């Protein structure tokens, strides 16, 4: 009886550990013609002039750091604290906060969003505020800030999309997106971080396949406790281990390694690295400034990223 009781809590725990690895086969779900690549990625026109501090949505949509934000409700999902707030203009924001000052993934998320949007991957309007004034039932007080994501009518959240099964598997933008995430040591390749947006523009309705909530990056990779936003760890961590059987081997310990193991070619890596290589030093610094990083820390990250870009560019196809 004792052993049976011991198994009672242990067995479900082991099953829970195993289940995340039981993922679907990575494959296309429709022909590429049915799903234009623009839904995932668009060639970044005028990349050199893109503003990586304010991002693709510009300064007009940015949250005002001097505004007072009223509490709508607290966040009841995920592993980070957060809340929904409304500003004085009536705009609603989803705020992701740090659970403690030294483990804040919001700055990383904003940097990642700036870089991804600059090189052509769609992103919602996200900004970083280090602190803000919250008004709740008990009055107003200064709250720790974080990632502010604006809820706009033109951009409707239609649920998550699957890394494993989508219309873009195998395409350059899809492979390139994975390479970029590897390059940043992003550990959270989970489907619930992917959002399918319906974007209502002057051209009609577009469907955007967006990778968001990518704040677990710029540190080490790992499933449970990857470091994030740590320049020392990021500088030390290897990026590419080599090329085997024609595919790039990454030093990736995060979730869903099946997405990159034996699937990314040197050409894919070079495609992504060439894209990132078109960003100027000023744009890189602006991206990190948008995330609230200090100049010296940003310089360390940019240096490490530049080295990784060069590493990917130098890959040769294995005979």
């Amino acid at each position: 009886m004792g052993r049976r009781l011991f198994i009672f809590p242990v067995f479900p725990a082991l099953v829970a550990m195993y289940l995340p690895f039981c993922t679907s086969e990575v494959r296309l779900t429709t022909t590429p013609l049915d799903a234009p690549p623009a839904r995932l990625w668009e060639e970044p026109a005028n990349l050199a002039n893109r503003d990586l501090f304010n991002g693709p949505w510009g300064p007009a949509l940015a949250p005002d750091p001097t505004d007072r934000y009223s509490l709508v409700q607290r966040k009841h999902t995920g592993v980070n604290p957060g809340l929904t707030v409304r500003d004085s203009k009536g705009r609603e924001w989803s705020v992701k906060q740090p659970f403690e000052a030294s483990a804040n993934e919001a700055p990383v998320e904003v940097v990642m969003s700036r870089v991804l949007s600059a090189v052509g991957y769609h992103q919602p309007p996200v900004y970083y505020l280090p602190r803000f004034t919250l008004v709740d039932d008990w009055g107003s007080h200064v709250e720790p800030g974080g990632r502010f994501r604006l809820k706009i009518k033109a951009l409707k959240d239609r649920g998550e999309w699957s890394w494993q099964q989508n219309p873009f598997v195998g395409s350059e933008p899809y492979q390139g997106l994975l390479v970029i995430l590897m390059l940043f040591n992003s550990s959270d390749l989970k489907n619930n971080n992917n959002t399918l947006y319906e974007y209502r523009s002057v051209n009609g309705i577009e469907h955007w396949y967006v990778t968001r909530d990518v704040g677990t990056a710029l540190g080490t990779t790992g499933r449970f406790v990857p470091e994030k936003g740590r320049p020392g760890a990021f500088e030390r961590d290897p990026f590419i281990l080599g090329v085997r059987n024609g595919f790039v081997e990454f030093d990736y310990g995060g979730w869903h390694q099946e997405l990159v193991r034996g699937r990314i070619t040197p050409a894919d890596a070079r495609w992504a690295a060439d894209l990132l290589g078109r960003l100027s030093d000023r744009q890189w610094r602006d991206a990190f400034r948008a995330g609230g990083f200090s100049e010296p820390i940003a310089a360390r990250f940019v240096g490490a990223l530049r080295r990784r870009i060069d590493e990917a560019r130098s890959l040769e196809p294995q005979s």
Partner: protein
Amino acid sequence: MTPHSIGRLASDPEGLRHVFAKTALLALLCGFTGGTALAQAPADPATGGSSKTTPAAETAGFFAEPRAIGRGVELARRVRFLANGGEGGEVKNGLYPELSNMVTGAGWISGGPGYRQWLFGDRLFLDGSAAISWRAYQTAQARAELTNLARSRIAVGSQAMWQDLTQVTYFGEGQESVESDRSEYHLQALNVVGYAIFRPRRSLSVNGRLGWISQPTVSSPTGTFKRGNPSTQEVFPEDPVFAQSQQPSYHYYELSAALDTRDQRNRATRGGLYRAGWVGYSAHDDGPFSFGRSEVEAAHFVPLAGSRVVLAAHGWLVATTLRDDQTVPFYFLPSLGGNNTLRSYNDYRFHDRNLLLASVEARVALFTHVDGAGFVDAGNVAHRLGELNLDRTSIGVGLRVHRSGTTFARFDVAHGNEGWGFVFRMHDSLQLARVARRTAAVPFVP
């Protein structure tokens, strides 16, 4: 999964070996299951509308911390956050592991499924869970609470809790009860309560409760991993509880107030918790088991040396009032001893109508996430209030592993008149989880 105290091991090398084996096993299990960050305090949705203004600050310790410690506690923090929410009351929707609602003595580990949901913009909170422990203690509970009425000033709710406690320890009543009279009983009870909480200020709450306990059953110990102690009825056959063919149902009514200025509920470093309350239990059968109980409790925390050292002082007085023709059944008697009170003594070591406890603890930040601690506990129980004293003492040292304002693991070694006590818990000794409890505590848990 909730571990409970490993227990007191005076002159018991066999027991000591079991303790170390279990501790090693637990550490292994934590490693496998993604950090079984465990807690005694249930999530408190009544704070869901409130907000802590600053994330918990990490104080660097006196020594450089190995990276493995930081990574281990981060893992535990994530699991704890999913189970119990954060300091600001960010309780998560959906399925969760039930890590609370199991009383002291249930065994070193317990667990079960829970489900909770916020509705109507954080105004209604629904929660249901069940759990089973190492010693086959079982609990199930359901709760509904309107949390943020009148601009968060008022919360009202109801909870039903069923408990099947297979091996509750009892040493007899009075200061002079002896360790060799250790006995155990099996207690089953259904507890239903309606409550209202008024918060004129964020830190101040006034609570009213009206509850009903359906005929508790007291019988011989059952369950798993029995300790081999005789049943309470064998050791104390003359106890008034066993004079009843069956226990009565009770209704109870309670009024209490609490001022909570602690910076963090689960590992305070400054501020304090001060509370006072009165509860009346009335037996339905007009028998001898109606009584009243008053409590006054205070815990105060003082940071020193830039919060690298925290001094904590705790005092607790429980007084029972009743008519001469009434008595208190042993399962309701205030009790003292064990992991949160007299740490060198067994859990539930002393029972009587009145209780007094004073503790002082100093915590020193050795590493960023590991504190060393030294403590002194003193207290006693007494039949009459005037007979209370601080004659029973424990003195000891310990280690605490913590992060984000939460203690994940606590190891205490204490010495007192009855030998050595070893405690392993996954919450702070001064968390005072009873403050967040909605239903009446049956049995009284120190």
